[in-house]
C-alpha cells in the first residue's frame, strides 16, 4: 500500500545541515497497524510527514497504492492528503474559533459535497468517537482526550485508507491516552491502515509491527 525506497531528507539551518532521514526503505501493507519508535529527534515525525506527503524527501521514491509519486502537482498531492490520508497530531491542531462539528467537517470542505451530506458525515464521525453531545462546543471547552478524539473524528470523516498519527497520546495522561488508543484500535479493526509514532512501549504492543528509527536510519 505504501512503499518508500531509499528516502533521504536533510534540513538546512544556517550553516548546519541535519540529515533527518538516511536511506529509508519501508513498506506498509493494507490493514496493518505499524508503530514507529525511537529516541527524540531521530526523525520519526519527518518520516511520518513524508509518508503522508506533508513534506518532500530530498531523494528516494514513494509509491502509494502502486502509483509512483513523481512530479505530482500541488492539487494532486492535496487530493491524496484529503482522500487517502488522515492525520492526527500530538498537539491536536484543532481550530479554536470553530465548533467541534465544524472542525470535524473541515476535510470535507475541500471536496465537492453538499452541505447536508458533510454535516451528516461529520455527525456520524463524532458519534463513532462518542462526542455527539459535544458537537456544538468549542475545542477549548473540551479536555485533552476529548480534543484528540475530535481530531480522530476529523481524520476519519473522509474515510481515508491510511491514518497517520504522530504521538497521538503524547500530550495526554494515561487514562485519556488509553481512550484514544482504543479508538485507534477499533478503526484498525474496521480496516483502516494505521502508522503511528509513539514513545510508549505499551501502546506499541497493540500494533502488528514496530519500526525502530535511530539517527535517521531504520534499525531491525
Amino acid at each position, binding site marked *: 500500500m505504501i512503499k518508500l525506497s531509499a528516502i533521504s531528507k536533510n534540513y538546512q539551518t544556517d550553516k548546519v545541515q541535519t540529515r533527518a532521514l538516511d536511506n529509508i526503505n519501508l513498506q506498509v501493507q493494507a490493514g496493518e497497524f505499524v508503530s514507529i519508535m525511537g529516541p527524540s529527534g531521530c526523525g520519526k515525525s519527518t518520516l511520518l510527514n513524508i509518508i503522508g506527503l506533508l*513534506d518532500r524527501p530530498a531523494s528516494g521514491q514513494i509509491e502509494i497504492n502502486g502509483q509512483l509519486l513523481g512530479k505530482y502537482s500541488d492539487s494532486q498531492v492535496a487530493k491524496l492528503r484529503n482522500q487517502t490520508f488522515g492525520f492526527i497530531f500530538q498537539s491536536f491542531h484543532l481550530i479554536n474559533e470553530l465548533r467541534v462539528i465544524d472542525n470535524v467537517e473541515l476535510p470535507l470542505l475541500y471536496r465537492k459535497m453538499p452541505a447536508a451530506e458533510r454535516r451528516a458525515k461529520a455527525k456520524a464521525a463524532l458519534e463513532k468517537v462518542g462526542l455527539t453531545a459535544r458537537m456544538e462546543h468549542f475545542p477549548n471547552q473540551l479536555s485533552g482526550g476529548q480534543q484528540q478524539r475530535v481530531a480522530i473524528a476529523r481524520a476519519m470523516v473522509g474515510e481515508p485508507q491510511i491514518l497517520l498519527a504522530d504521538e497521538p497520546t503524547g500530550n495526554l495522561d494515561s487514562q485519556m491516552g488509553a481512550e484514544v488508543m482504543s479508538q485507534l484500535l477499533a478503526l484498525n479493526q474496521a480496516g483502516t491502515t494505521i502508522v503511528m509514532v509513539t514513545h510508549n512501549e505499551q501502546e506499541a504492543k497493540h500494533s502488528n509491527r514496530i519500526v525502530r528509527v535511530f539517527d535517521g536510519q531504520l534499525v531491525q
Partner: protein
Amino acid sequence: MIHHIFKLVWQRKSRHLLLSLEILLAFLVVFALCAAAGRYYQLFQLPTGLSHQARWLVSIEGQDHDELTQTATTASNTEPLMAQYQRALKQIPAMQQVSFTDLPLYDLSRQTTLLQRADTGQSLGVDQISVSDDFFAAAELPLIAGRSFNQTDNGAAHQPVVIDQRLADTLFPGIDPIGQLLRDDATSSSTSYQVIGLVQALRTQGELMAVAPTVITRLSEQSVPAILLLQLAPGTDRAIEQQLLQQLKQVRSDWRYNMEPLTQKRQSMLRTQMIPLFILAVLSAFLLSMVAFGLFGVLWQHTSLRIPELGLRRAIGATAGNIYWQIIAEQLLLNLLAVSIALVLLVQLPLTGVLGEHLNWPLFLMASLVATLIICLLSLICALYPAWRASRLTPTEALHYE
C-alpha cells in the same frame, strides 16, 4: 465555503475590530470625496445662465456717492453715468453689448435677501442681483417665459423682477409665476415686485455654485455704475484692454477700472471652488496610504498567527490556491462587513434628506459604489502578498511555525 469563511470572520470579530474601524473610517472619507466630486460634476452640468467667452467684466472703484448726488444736480452734463459709459464704450467697433450689474460674476461675493409672496405671505431667502436692461443680451441669459426689462418698466407701480426656475418652483409651485406679486421681507421698506420673466437659472458664482432661488431686479438707469459686463466680437484679443480703459476714462478719469476677461475670471473661480475638493483628495490619499500600511501590517500579523491553522488545512487537503483565496476572501468579507456598517450610517443622509440635493440618491449610490470598489481594491492589494506567502509554506513548515 463562503459560509465557513463567514463563521471564521465572525468568530474572530474582536481581533478584527480595529481593522474594521480603520476600513470604516477610510471608507467614510473616500465616500465623502466621491460624493463631493460627484456633486461638483452634477453642478458643472447645470446651466449657469452666463456666457463667458468674449466677455469682459469691469469693476469700477473710487466712486464717492456724496459727491455724485451733488454733481448730478450741478453738472452741465445731466445724462446718467450709465448712458455715458454706454455711449463711450460703443465707440469701440468690436463692442457688441454694454450692460451693468451690482454684483461681480464668477466671484465669491453674493447678495441675499428675503422675499415674501404677496398673497400667501410665504417668505423665502433668495440670492439677488440687479442688472441693467442689456444684461440679458450681454450674458446671453435666455428667458423661458415672460420678458426681460425694458423702458416700459420706468415708473411701473411694482418693480419688475425676473426670477429663476428654483424660485418659481418654491414660491409658486404649480402656478404660472408671471404676473405674481412679491414683497421685500428683509427691510421694512414695503417695496413690492412683480414677476415679469422667468429664467432657467442664474448662478452668479459660476458652474460650481449650488442652485439657489434667485431674483433679478432692475438696475435703475440713474444708479451709480459699479460693474460692467461687456460683450465683444468673438476673437477680440487682450489688446482691447487699452482701448477699453481709454473709453472708460473719458467718462470718469478719476475712477479706477479693474478689467478682466470673464473666461479668466471663471478659471480662477473654478480653481478656488476646487480647493475643498483638492484638500479632501489629499486627505483621502494620505488616509488611504495610512490605512494601506496598517492593513498590510495587520494582515501580515494575522496570517502569521494563523499559519499553524493554514498548515493544518494544507495537511487535510487544501491546495495552495485554496489557502490563497481563503485569505483574500476573508479580507474581502471583513471589508464588506465594515463597508456595510458605514453604509447603514451613511444611508441616513439621503433618507433623512439633511443634505438635500447635495447628496441625493443617484449621488449616494454612485459614491457608495465607487468608494466600495476603491476600499475593496485597497484591501485586495494589501491581502495579496500575505496570502501568497501563507500559501507558499509547506504543510510541515506551517504546522510547526512559531
